[in-house]
């Protein structure tokens, strides 16, 4: 008799288990989600979260997590279904598998938008997650750290809430654990916390994160290195003090080797880190230059493509912008050539704009710098970028500014000659201005200017009298005898023929 009674329960439990497992299985495929949602899976899973059998509970949580992971509508449905408080309460007490699953749900909900993350925070999930970070099991710590990272990544308030919950010291402890995946996720969470404001980054630094992060830069694991460099660059980007702290961890000759890593993202993040450090002060940039960083970055820019090369290009620009000495260091490290190649090779506008900007920063210091940039045949390319019809506005302004900066310093006339022929008036002004500065003092250049057809071109320019361009043209014309100026002026042959007609021969 009792056997029969028990069989009913057995049957019930069996079918519950089968239901949640099937739902969890189905939820892992995106094409099923719509159907599941329409079938009202949310309201069915919710009571199963409170089931008496732990396996059913955690499988239900897993299914929920997969659903919430799929899109923000479902995540919102989880929030609206009042499921989060249950999860948070059980997060404190249940076994480790359940904790993992619950943290997964929280993470899946929080990842979509700041509002959803805020609702997760409002349920008091942070304290529970922080307690999970103190757990012994690395898997639980990992999922808790992951959820905390996803919450913190949205905005500064949420990150501040995570910090206020006391997560940072525990995350720093997590970095020191032996498990690779835990290290990775903790580093990523720290990076997400640091990225919002200097204060948050300072909190992370105060917890002693830099020393531990710096130890891991020579790790074999590429994914860990990605996160470590990302975290370090997020710390260094805010202020000079923080950047100095990062530099003081003696990362310098070591990180340069990572520019040769086989993983693209590691390379990109290293270049970003170097860029974030170099951009602050001339001293930091000098330190990087003295460590041979510029040569390494130049090589890196030459070897990589597309978006990966962008931080390298910007780093060269930042270094060159600080002082003429540093710009000269970039030049002797053969940076100009690589930037010129990047400018011509890359298809995307924003990378071209960055390269143009960097070149402008290198060439704007002295005539020597401008000459180094000009002989790399950069000026026609910059002009092309400026004049291209489909160029973005940013690229146009950047290339124009770079051209202007370089031209105002450039006295290397052979490089300026081609611009005379195809530059628009607003650029031509600067080109002619440079000629008008050099020609009065250099007889050889005057001669060359005539033979190369520059003078002829100058006569053909129609400048309004009184404008700057007109002044420059006048100055150039004054350097030459009147006959030669006349000879090259358009319409002189007609004038000569007219004189032939009017000439009365003496018989």
């Amino acid at each position: 008799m009792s056997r029969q009674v028990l069989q009913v329960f057995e049957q019930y439990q069996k079918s519950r288990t089968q239901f949640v497992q099937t739902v969890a299985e189905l939820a892992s495929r995106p094409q099923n989600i719509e159907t599941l949602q329409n079938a009202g899976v949310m309201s069915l899973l919710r009571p199963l979260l409170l089931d008496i059998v732990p396996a059913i509970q955690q499988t239900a949580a897993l299914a929920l997590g997969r659903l919430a992971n799929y899109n923000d509508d479902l995540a919102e449905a989880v929030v609206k279904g009042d499921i989060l408080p249950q999860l948070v309460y059980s997060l404190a007490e249940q076994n480790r598998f359940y904790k993992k699953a619950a943290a997964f749900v929280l993470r899946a909900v929080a990842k979509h938008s700041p509002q959803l993350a805020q609702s997760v925070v409002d349920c008091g999930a942070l304290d529970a997650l922080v307690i999970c970070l103190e757990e012994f099991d690395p898997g639980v710590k990992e999922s808790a750290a992951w959820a905390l990272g996803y919450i913190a990544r949205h905005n500064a308030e949420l990150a501040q809430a995570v910090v206020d919950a006391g997560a940072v010291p525990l995350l720093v402890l997590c970095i020191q654990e032996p498990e690779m995946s835990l290290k990775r996720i903790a580093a990523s969470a720290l990076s997400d916390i640091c990225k919002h404001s200097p204060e948050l980054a300072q909190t992370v630094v105060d917890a002693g994160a830099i020393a531990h992060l710096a130890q891991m830069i020579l790790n074999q694991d590429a994914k860990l290195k990605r996160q470590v460099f990302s975290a370090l660059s997020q710390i260094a980007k805010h202020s000079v003090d923080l950047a100095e702290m990062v530099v003081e961890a003696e990362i310098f000759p070591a990180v340069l080797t990572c520019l040769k890593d086989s993983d693209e993202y590691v390379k990109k993040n290293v270049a970003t880190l170097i860029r974030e450090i170099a951009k602050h002060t001339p001293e930091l940039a000098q330190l990087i230059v003295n460590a041979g960083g510029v040569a390494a970055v130049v090589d890196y820019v030459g070897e990589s493509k597309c978006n990966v090369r962008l931080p390298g290009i910007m780093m060269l620009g930042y270094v060159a912008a600080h002082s003429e000495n540093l710009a000269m260091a970039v030049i002797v490290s053969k940076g100009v050539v690589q930037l010129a190649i990047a400018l011509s090779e890359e298809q995307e506008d924003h990378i071209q704009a960055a390269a143009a900007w960097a070149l402008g920063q290198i060439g704007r210091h002295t005539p020597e710098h401008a000459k180094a940039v000009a002989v790399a045949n950069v000026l026609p390319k910059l002009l092309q970028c400026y004049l291209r019809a489909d160029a973005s506005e940013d690229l146009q302004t950047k290339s124009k500014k770079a051209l202007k900066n370089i031209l105002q310093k450039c006295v290397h006339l052979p490089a300026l000659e081609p611009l005379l022929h195809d530059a628009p008036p607003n650029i031509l002004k600067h080109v002619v201005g440079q000629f008008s500065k050099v020609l009065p003092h250099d007889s050889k250049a005057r001669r060359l200017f005539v033979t190369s057809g520059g003078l002829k071109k100058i006569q053909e320019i129609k400048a309004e009298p009184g404008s700057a361009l007109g002044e420059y043209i006048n100055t150039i014309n004054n350097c030459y005898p009147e006959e030669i100026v006349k000879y090259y002026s358009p319409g002189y042959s007609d004038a000569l023929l007219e004189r032939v007609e009017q000439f009365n021969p003496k018989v």
Partner: protein
Amino acid sequence: MAALVRLTDQVDEIINSIYDGKNQAEEERLREYKAAVKVQAWFRASRSRSYLKHLNKCALKVQRTYRGYLGRRYFRVLLKNTVFIMKLNHYNSMSCKIQKMWRGYYVRKYIFNYYSRKRYLEALQIKNHTIRGELTEFAEQQEAARKREEEKNDKKRQEYEARKRHHLVSTEVMPGIYNSPFLPYPSETEYLLRSVKPLIRKKAAEKEPLFDPVCASYNSKVPTVLPPIPQKPQGPFREPIDVQKQRYKPFQPSLRVATDFYSLEKARQQLKDAEWVTRINDNILQPFTHRSIPYEPLLHTTSKFGHLPYGTKFFRHEYIDRHIVPQNFKTLVPPIPIFDKLNDTYSQGQV
């Protein structure tokens, strides 16, 4: 009387002669008058002309003297100005020279030294070269390591394949398919097959777990046999009542989370406050060993102008490596003797 008679006789004559005389005088009078006027006019004219001449002569003399005076005065001023300008130009050119020397020296010493910049850039190029070399070496090493790993895996896989196909090895009697009798020697695969052991798949004990209570992994198999339902949940769990009670117990944060971040500072402040309240005297009595003696300055390092900074004060940072020569510059401009000779100075400044 006779005379009277004679005179009476001659009355007519006399009257006639008087008339004649009067008539003649009357006739001559106008002429004489004109002549007198002419004489007077000439005289007066010549008198006033000579006077004017005299006046002119005097005025000329006065003017000449005065103009001479003015001219000389103007000349003096002009001379002074010219000499002043000349000297000023001279001083300017000299001061240019001095400034040029000084600025060149100063810039080379403290601001920019071409040779040190050149040396720096050369050193940087060498450093870049070494860094590039090191990085290339590092990349090569990594590549080699990766290749080695790949080869190792490849070999392992090949071996595994060979073990799986070990049955194709030739026997004493029967040559295998990799050991063609038409070839002078067996193929490489044959040697590989010979070198490895046959793969023997260990038969796993067919044992279905009855039920995994914790579902140790998410993809564990669905249990076929369900356990009997006990009174309390299966596994190392407590009573449901206990669990229920624990679930709804109030949140107990860890000590770290519960305590205030500034608790230490607050506690210190509290202690300080308590001490301040219970203190009887604000001027704490110090033992004689703690008596503070006012500072007495040393005789040698003080003067009435204040403290002498012997080796303690740091005026300017000197970049010794930017010095071109260790010695100081000597003065190159010779002294100007004319300044010593002349007491008067035409320049506004002090020489």
